[in-house]
């Protein structure tokens, strides 16, 4: 075995090469961790958005999108009075008639932005128990209630989103009545409004859907209801399935982040290989001399891998520090709302493994190329 200090000393023999390897590793690790955190954050948000007890009644044929769905207004009342097994509190059924609308809103001193509005009644609070009011109260006519992440979509600083502020929608000013939280769900990026207000402003006499909260995750009675009430043309979709469908819909976007990371990783690996080929080629005679001194090829290869690993893992550690400092918890917007990048232990491990992979795989081909030639030929290459 070659002494460890040999690898360390060699590491600093060419500072430019060290910097190049370190930056390459940093960039690839950062990208892998970014892609992982993006996927983790988006998947977590969409999976947290579905409750096994909740089931959505949508328009037949519009099962993938509540915004496209239309069902008769009376569906909510008929469902509440007909379907057995719906949760009840104080004589009221947990049935939430809703209107989902992608509308343009404008906050003071901000650009006009498109954002998802959800028209609701107070029953929504029975259907979504994870929802809690952080400030203010539930919206009445002429009021809006944004989720705590809506500031990102509105394009305003987080601290500006507070009760009392005015938001402009369809040429009218609406006062923010309160801010709500629904941890980890898409709802936190939405803006909730009074159902009647939203229906008037969007000139719709129908609903997008009705969400029911059942006593058990058994949705058979709801399915029977939709088959019996064929005149309502309803489709029954458990809330978890609805958001799983959305997660599936966004899978290509998540895949793209991985492909981007992979392509840049391959580019960095190719660049690293090139650098190491040149670096090791200039050391063929030195490595041959080590063999004449009695060190085996395996021992020399191990030392070269140690050398590259130190550079790559240092890059990965720097990437990890940067990611935890600047990427963790970063809010990202997409058409369904906003979510936070999640630097989970799995993502951190993936980053460290990337550094390990780059160090080992990047070293093997150039190192083997230097070690394979017969000793006399290798020694002669010094001249």
């Amino acid at each position, binding site marked *: 075995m070659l002494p460890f200090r040999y690898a360390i000393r060699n590491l600093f023999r060419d500072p430019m090469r060290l910097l190049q390897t370190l930056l390459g590793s940093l960039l690839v690790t950062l990208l892998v961790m970014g892609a992982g955190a993006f996927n983790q954050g988006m998947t977590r948000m969409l999976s947290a958005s579905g409750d096994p007890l909740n089931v959505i009644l949508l328009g*037949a*044929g519009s099962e993938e999108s509540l915004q496209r769905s239309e069902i008769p207004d009376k569906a909510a009342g008929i469902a509440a009075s*007909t379907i057995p097994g719906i949760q009840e509190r104080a004589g009221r059924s947990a049935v939430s008639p809703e209107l989902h609308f992608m509308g343009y809103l404008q906050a003071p001193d901000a650009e006009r932005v498109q954002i998802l509005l959800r028209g609701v009644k107070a029953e929504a609070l029975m259907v979504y128990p994870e929802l809690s009011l952080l400030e203010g109260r539930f919206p009445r006519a002429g009021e809006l209630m944004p989720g705590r992440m809506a500031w990102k979509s509105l394009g305003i600083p987080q601290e500006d989103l507070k009760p009392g502020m005015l938001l402009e929608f369809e040429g009218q000013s609406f006062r923010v009545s309160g801010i709500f939280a629904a941890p980890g769900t898409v709802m936190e990026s939405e803006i909730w409004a009074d159902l009647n207000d939203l229906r008037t402003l969007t000139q719709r006499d129908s609903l997008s859907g009705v969400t029911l909260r059942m006593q058990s995750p058994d949705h*058979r009675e709801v*399915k*029977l209801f939709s*088959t*019996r*009430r*064929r*005149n*309502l*043309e309803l489709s029954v979709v458990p809330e978890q399935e609805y958001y799983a469908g959305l997660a599936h819909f966004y899978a290509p976007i998540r895949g793209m982040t991985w492909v981007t990371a992979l392509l840049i990783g391959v580019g960095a690996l190719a660049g690293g290989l090139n650098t190491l080929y040149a670096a090791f080629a200039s050391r063929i005679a030195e490595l041959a001399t080590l063999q004449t001194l009695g060190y085996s090829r395996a021992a020399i290869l191990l030392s070269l891998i140690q050398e590259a690993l130190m550079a790559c893992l240092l890059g990965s550690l720097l990437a990890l520090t940067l990611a935890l400092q600047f990427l963790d918890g970063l809010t990202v917007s997409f058409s369904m709302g906003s979510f936070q990048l999640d630097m989970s232990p799995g993502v951190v491990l993936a980053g460290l493994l990337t550094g390990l992979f780059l160090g080992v795989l990047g070293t093997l081909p150039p190192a083997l190329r230097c070690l394979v030639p017969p000793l006399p030929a290798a020694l002669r290459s010094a001249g």
Partner: protein
Amino acid sequence: MKTKTILPVLAALLLAACGKEASAPPSSAAPEIDPRIDALFMEISAEKLAKIPEARHSHSVKDELVLEGRIMGAMDLFVDGHAMFVLGDMETVTPCIDMPDPSHCDTPWDACCDPKELRIQGTATVQVLDEQGQVIPQGLEGVNGLEKLSKVRVKAQVAAGSDGEAFILNALALQVLP
């Protein structure tokens, strides 16, 4: 010595596993038809045949009637695990299979080209109830020839909750027609 002991044990275990596999019942065995459902299949007289669009307005809850139609008019005609199907009136509802170019649709039993009002007027939901008034927990698809687009004659009673908009029938007798 160890190898000599382990090999027969492994061989015995493998043989035992093979034996279990061989004795397992075939997975494709059809489920038994609920006798309450089976008892409904009989010949029904075609006298006084009613039509779905008129019957939904002319008959009240608990009225008995005989209807004829095809299992069609919706994307989902049967409900998994529940004795229920959608019956479509053959003069009102046109399934995709009867359209000039049936290949335009992957679901030849629905009536996606008909206006919504026609689909609603021309279809009824037929359910089979148990003694407690609950839908019998067995799907009807494939039972005694009941398939998508099957021609069926139904003797039924108008169900509670049925109205001019939602026409719901409790089956008293069923006959699959050729």
